[in-house]
């Protein structure tokens, strides 16, 4: 069945694939899963309770000040939105480029996108100070004047971009899941007939999958429209994913702060988002394949491909850093030049050099095939890259804001316990959601993997 070209060929009967992929859902979770879930949940509770506390006592518990009004909120917001980009890149852009290796990783990457965007959205919500008025940003006819949102503001563009990105990613992900939910529904029907114990729980699970499968029976007439939809949603999601981080970068680039007011920002942010997103996918995939024994589906070759994407986007990010410096040096603007000198030598120079080491130096290890096919090296680099990308946002937000044009208004920034608690909480919420996902939803897009296998066998005949 396997041709030379199809190196991602799994070569198992479809029923065996079902068993492999559904095992984490149908079996009782392992101790490792409970341990990870417990830690994540504790971190999430810490974050959520700190957020609720801040709603009662006000934003004073955080370190934001004048001039550093954005603080950790926007650092974390941009970080998490960036993480989200890899999912849509894998599911949409790699689909359009006919990259077969995407099928094993797209489901988990899309899930990661959705959870990352949820986590990202928390930060502006806290930052606005009165989160109960957040709906004021939506332009609906109202009794406050009417008081409309400002359509010329990049902050409002960002609201629309993030909302659209979240909704479209969610429906794309869900529609991709429907055939797999149908597989689960039919498996649970069988268990229900055979099982005597745990009947109620089984009934509830079975009912949930039945509803989620919305009556999918694999009719060719449905597949016919469905495949068209996958193509169109990919074509829509591709410009969407590029637009989202472009608009996030507009939040900075349309201002006049030295270090922000640069035309390189949109491509620079998009490349950085893909870079950090792929690193996060790599971290999660390495853990998933080890813990859930999915090494036949997520192979070294998949990880190597991701490593190459990380290497390329890492160099794009390095290039953008260089361009920023050259533009500042060439700008004849003392404030602009000082902003970059201050990055390298100012009070937050340590943050800049952490960013530089992690983002510019570390990906170059991936030039060597020995290193980029070594799971341990990949795992370390994927985490190092994400640390670097967090510090990149720290450098952009904190260093640029703390010293702008007027030395008399310069100040420093010293994060409080609440800033750290919310940041740890954001990781907690993300990993709690992800761990719940791998226990309840097929973490590999089964129907797509089967389609690759089936169609490879057809072309061979």
């Amino acid at each position, binding site marked *: 069945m396997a041709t030379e070209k199809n190196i991602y060929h799994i070569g198992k*009967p*479809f*029923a065996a694939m*079902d068993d492999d992929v559904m095992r984490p859902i149908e079996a009782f979770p392992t101790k490792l899963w409970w341990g990870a879930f417990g830690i994540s949940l504790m971190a999430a509770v810490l974050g959520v309770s700190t957020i609720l506390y801040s709603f009662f006592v006000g934003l004073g518990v955080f370190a934001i000040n004048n001039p550093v009004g954005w603080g950790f909120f926007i650092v974390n917001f941009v970080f998490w939105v960036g993480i989200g980009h890899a999912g849509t890149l894998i599911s949409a852009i790699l689909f359009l480029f006919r990259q077969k290796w995407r099928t094993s990783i797209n489901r988990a990457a899309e899930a990661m996108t959705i959870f990352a965007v949820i986590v990202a959205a928390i930060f502006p919500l806290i930052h606005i100070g009165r989160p109960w008025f957040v709906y004021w940003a939506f*332009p609906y006819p109202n009794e406050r*004047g*009417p008081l*409309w949102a400002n*359509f*010329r503001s*990049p902050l409002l*563009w960002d609201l*629309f971009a993030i*909302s*659209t990105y979240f*909704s*479209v990613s969610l*429906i*794309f992900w869900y*529609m991709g899941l*429907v*055939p797999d939910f*149908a*597989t689960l529904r*039919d*498996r649970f029907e069988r268990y229900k007939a055979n099982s005597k114990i745990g009947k109620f729980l089984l009934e509830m699970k079975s009912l949930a999958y039945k*509803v989620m*499968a*919305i*009556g*999918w*029976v*694999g*009719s*060719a*007439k*449905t*597949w*016919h*429209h*469905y495949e*068209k*939809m996958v193509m*169109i*949603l990919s074509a*829509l*999601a591709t*410009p*969407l994913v590029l*637009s989202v981080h472009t608009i996030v970068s*507009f939040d900075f680039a349309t201002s006049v702060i030295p270090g922000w007011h640069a035309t390189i920002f949109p491509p620079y942010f998009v490349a950085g988002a893909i870079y950090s997103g792929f690193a996060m996918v790599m971290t999660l995939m390495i853990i998933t394949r080890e813990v859930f024994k999915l090494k036949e589906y997520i192979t070294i070759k998949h990880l190597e491909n991701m490593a190459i994407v990380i290497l390329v986007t890492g160099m794009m990010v390095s290039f953008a850093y260089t361009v920023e410096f050259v533009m500042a040096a060439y700008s004849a603007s003392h404030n602009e030049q000082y902003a970059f000198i201050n990055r390298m030598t100012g009070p937050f120079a340590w943050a800049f050099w952490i960013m530089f080491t992690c983002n510019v130096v570390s990906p170059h290890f991936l030039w060597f095939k020995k290193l980029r096919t070594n799971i341990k090296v990949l795992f370390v680099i994927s985490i190092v890259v994400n640390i670097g990308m967090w510090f990149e946002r720290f450098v952009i937000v904190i260093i640029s804001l703390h010293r702008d044009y007027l030395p008399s208004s310069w100040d420093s920034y010293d994060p409080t316990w609440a800033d750290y608690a919310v940041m740890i909480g954001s990781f907690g919420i993300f990993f709690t959601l992800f761990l719940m996902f791998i226990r309840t939803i097929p973490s590999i897009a089964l*129907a*797509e993997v*089967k*389609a690759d296998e*089936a*169609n490879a*066998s*057809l*072309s061979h005949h």
Partner: protein
Amino acid sequence: MLSIAEIKRGLFSYDEVSGGFVASLKTPADLLNAAKQVKAANVKLFDCFTPCPIHGLDAAMGLHRSWIPVLTFVGGLMAGILSLLYITFIDVFNWPIVYGGKPYFSWPAYVPILFEMVIYFAAVFTVVAVLVLGRLGFINRKVPAAGVTSDVFAIWIGDKGISKADVERILSGLNPQIEEVKA
């Protein structure tokens, strides 16, 4: 032309409950051949059931092009026009304010929001179109043959007055497992 009854049946029901026979096959290649043979035997009412999309099955079954792209375009276009009208109503007529010396109708600044609205509604229209045209949402719909969501490739033949012997003759050489569907 489609009759009203046909459109109603098409939108609010699905085919394989109306009787006929289901033949289960082992491989996608067999299913492709089955679809070709059924088409060649001039069967009018039939459908295939597979765990994954199969290349070339649409052509073998003689399905016409999907209407989905048209509906996507309509959704996107409507969203773009209506959003532009709405923003214009707000910024020019309902509450005109000068921001940063820009004109009331500053269309370049609206482009990001219009773009997002076009993408959003194009995607929503696409998905709703798949739900309707693909007959999804009947959560009690049963799989016509066991295993079509796992590893079985099935074809349903539902022409009026067709007999089991006819089905066996049409699918000769493919060794199918045939079951009758009770209407």
